[in-house]
């Protein structure tokens, strides 16, 4: 730890916002998802009850995770499923590789899985001569562009249709200059159908793993996970340990929340329940820790493991919407990424808890009621305690702390500020030492303080 370079969110966001109309477009696209979520949630009278239930079920899971995992394994094995355990990303990749090599797999089709992104499975397999094709349309687009996802539900939300048209023209020989999403989707359908018909194995992520039944549930709109998993004898499902839910009936709660929180749909088009291998086939489930069990021990932060990856927090976040997924430097961006990553590597991700206005919009929509904004605030304190705080932030904050802790000092300082902001030349406020003033203007300064105004106007 500590050897990797820190993520500089502000610098990365700077690049993203250099094109203002594109930033506005991104903001509007992501906001649209949030608006649809609000409409979908409002149609369910018991919405808030469902959120409380989901949160309660997940609390129970965190307290009994070991037992549920053992129960899940036992039931899955009884179903004829082969269960594997991986402590970290490398061991996950080794396990998947050995299954694929045993079956002499040349072409693997993969549906969306943030876990395999987290583990960097694709480059690992490609280095061993196994072709990997991501089959979710958005994932395929970014794979062809040699990029990672910028959003966990809509991985290509940052890309314009003109760019998709060019990409498909270059790599799939579609018509030059095509921009019609219908046409471009059809091109991808034909391209991917050929991959499905010729693949040797399929790998999917997991939305929920049910301890009681030993099965996994995978949700997609395109049907790509199913086109792979049912096409060939060998199917592999990779999951983090926190994907466990106790009972079949709990699926009712989570499936009602997931798609509505993500896109406002009442449910994804396909909610597939994989229980047993197909006749003559093999079904493998790989259970991955990769830092999660350690995170479970952090009282203040363990709730982040309740995340069901709906993306509602990033859709609601004014910082994510205007800085883009890549500025976070991690597979899971946005508010949830900013509270997960410091647990993996505080020094590397120390900036992310500050990539927030602490407005709380994320916590207000989270379907499992994770206290994201509180955790962001608490991670900031951790960054300070561990002495990773950026020096300019530290100086400013310690002055602010001193002034704000004394009413007298505050009164004097605010009078001075009103005077200064009125008469100071612009370069004093707008300079390279004040990141806040980038792209922002100061409000006009009132002649009197609120305290004076209140005293005068109180009847």
């Amino acid at each position, binding site marked *: 730890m500590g050897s990797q370079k820190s993520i500089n969110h502000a610098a990365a966001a700077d690049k993203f916002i250099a094109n203002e109309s594109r930033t506005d477009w991104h903001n509007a696209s992501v906001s649209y998802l949030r608006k649809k979520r609000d409409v979908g949630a409002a149609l369910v009278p018991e919405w808030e009850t469902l959120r409380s239930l989901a949160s309660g079920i997940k609390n129970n899971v965190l307290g009994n995770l070991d037992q549920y995992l053992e129960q899940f394994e036992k039931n899955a094995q009884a179903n004829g499923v082969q269960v594997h355990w991986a402590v970290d990303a490398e061991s996950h990749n080794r396990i998947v590789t050995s299954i694929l090599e045993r079956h002499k797999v040349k072409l693997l089709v993969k549906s969306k899985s943030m876990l395999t992104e987290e583990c960097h499975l694709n480059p690992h397999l490609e280095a061993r001569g196994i072709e990997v094709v991501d089959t979710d349309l958005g994932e395929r687009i970014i794979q062809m562009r040699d990029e990672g996802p910028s959003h966990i539900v809509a991985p290509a939300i940052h890309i314009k249709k003109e760019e998709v048209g060019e990409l498909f023209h270059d790599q799939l020989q579609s018509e030059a200059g095509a921009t019609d999403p219908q046409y471009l989707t059809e091109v991808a359908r034909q391209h991917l159908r050929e991959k499905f018909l010729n693949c040797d194995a399929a790998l999917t992520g997991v939305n929920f793993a049910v301890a009681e039944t030993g099965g996994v549930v995978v949700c997609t709109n395109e*049907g790509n996970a199913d086109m792979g998993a049912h096409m060939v004898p060998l199917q592999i499902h990779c999951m983090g340990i926190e994907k466990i839910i106790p009972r079949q009936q709990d699926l009712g709660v989570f499936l009602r929340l997931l798609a509505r929180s993500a896109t406002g749909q*009442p449910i994804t088009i396909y909610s597939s329940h994989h229980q047993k291998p197909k006749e003559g086939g093999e079904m493998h489930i790989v259970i991955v820790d990769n830092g999660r069990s350690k995170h479970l021990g952090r009282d203040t932060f363990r709730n982040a493991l309740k995340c069901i990856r709906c993306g509602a927090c990033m859709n609601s976040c004014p910082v994510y919407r205007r800085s883009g997924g890549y500025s976070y430097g991690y597979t899971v961006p946005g508010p949830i990424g900013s509270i997960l990553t410091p647990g993996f590597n505080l020094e590397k991700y120390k900036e992310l808890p500050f990539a927030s206005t602490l407005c709380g919009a994320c916590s207000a929509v989270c379907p499992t009621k994770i206290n994201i904004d509180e955790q962001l605030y608490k991670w900031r304190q951790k960054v300070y305690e561990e002495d990773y705080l950026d020096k300019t932030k530290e100086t400013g904050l310690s002055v602010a702390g001193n002034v704000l802790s004394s009413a007298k000092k505050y009164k004097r300082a605010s009078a001075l500020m009103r005077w200064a902001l009125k008469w100071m030349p612009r370069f004093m406020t707008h300079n390279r030492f004040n990141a806040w003033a980038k792209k922002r203007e100061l409000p006009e300064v009132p002649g009197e303080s609120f305290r004076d105004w209140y005293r005068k106007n109180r009847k």
Partner: protein
Amino acid sequence: MESTDARKSILESIRKHRPESSDIPAIPDFESPMSNIVFGFGEVAAANGSKVVHIDDPDQLQEVIKANFPDIGPVYSLVDQIPSTFQLREGAAPVDHQGIDLAILHAELGVAENGAVWVSTESMNPRILPFICEHLVVLLEKSSIRSNMHEAYKEINLKNIGFGVFIAGPSKTADIEQSLVIGAQGARSHTICLL
């Protein structure tokens, strides 16, 4: 052996770090906001992009297919009233089902709140069928419609099946600039015949 050691160390690490256990909440029954769940199911299914057709008798299926798919190619049917015209070789693999224009199968349940139907290996083989076909028709009895997912799961026993899926409409995507496109990787259309 790597996996066995990993299992031990993951479970140990969880035991060391897990918080105190809390009770698992009981899931109550929720009343449907719909006054008529059959009507409501139809409305939501249509909003999802499904076509809903009402029939009084399974024999009317023939007419429905003729009217809605006049130029249809090879048909694969798991419903008595409609004959299959898709030719399959002995011991066919899932991949051999490529080329089915229309698949027709029984849906075991419908869910009013989200317009989804449940099909499982109890009534469907092979598993690839509802995904690989160009168009899908399901036959659903009105009496099999439940108000919400909680009620639907009460009727399902996952332990008894190999695979089961809620299908809520035609395959779709909005991955290019949020534009909704029907017919991504799976069936291009989804017709529900309500009996």
